[in-house]
């Protein structure tokens, strides 16, 4: 049986227990049609990036489904009819990911800034050798670096590094 991932967004004014009941309903539909739901995740009440049916927020739920296509179409049909469901999306996947999805990980850790800092550190590491080289032209008086800057006027991105290496070349 093919594997599916199904995400749906429920109306914000229902409670989270109602969302769970909704998920249970959908699970039942899948199981009645000979499939099974291997994992369910409730992402919580999240704010939408744009308004859907005049709503600014929605309850997100994810279902990992292993079911025949007929079961999925039946579930989607029910989702379309259901008034509390703003939107749904089902996609076929080659394999289900184990453990919590990326959404749950980012939610539980709340380490957005930490990850950003890691990214920044990674970039620093990329330009690390050049930074260590920069003290050398700093000792050299300003005109040398100014001339080098005149030689290489373009490329604002690496302009910080370019004069450093150039001035070193002219020294040698």
């Amino acid at each position: 049986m093919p594997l599916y991932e199904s995400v749906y967004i429920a109306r914000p004014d229902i409670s989270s227990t109602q969302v769970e009941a909704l998920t249970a309903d959908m699970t039942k539909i899948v199981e009645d049609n000979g499939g099974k739901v291997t994992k369910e995740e409730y992402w919580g009440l999240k704010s939408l990036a744009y308004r859907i049916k005049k709503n600014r927020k929605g309850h997100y739920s994810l279902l990992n489904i292993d079911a025949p296509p007929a079961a999925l179409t039946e579930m989607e049909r029910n989702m379309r009819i259901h008034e509390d469901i703003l939107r749904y999306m089902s996609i076929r996947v080659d394999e289900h990911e184990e453990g919590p999805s990326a959404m749950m990980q980012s939610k539980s850790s709340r380490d957005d800034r930490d990850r950003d800092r890691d990214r920044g550190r990674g970039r620093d590491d990329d330009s690390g050798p050049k930074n260590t080289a920069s003290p050398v032209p700093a000792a050299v008086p300003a005109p040398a670096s100014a001339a080098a800057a005149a030689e290489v006027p373009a490329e604002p991105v690496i302009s910080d590094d370019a004069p450093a290496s150039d001035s070193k070349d002219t020294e040698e």
Partner: protein
Amino acid sequence: MSRRPFFRRPKSCPFSGDNAPKIDYKNVKLLQRFTSERGKIVPSRITAVSAKKQRELSTAIKRARNLALMPFLIN
């Protein structure tokens, strides 16, 4: 002597190689790095994503947009 003009060191694709992040429509943090301030998908010639991964990335971003995890446009 001096540095070759218009020289750019080769960039490598952020999604290939070991422990590269997996492209997933649910990982909004990752996808946001590849969209502009206005929510457009940034071309691969700027982000250095390989052609194959760029195709994957664009479908992931479009899926995330459909689920209102990412905006279609920001004014």
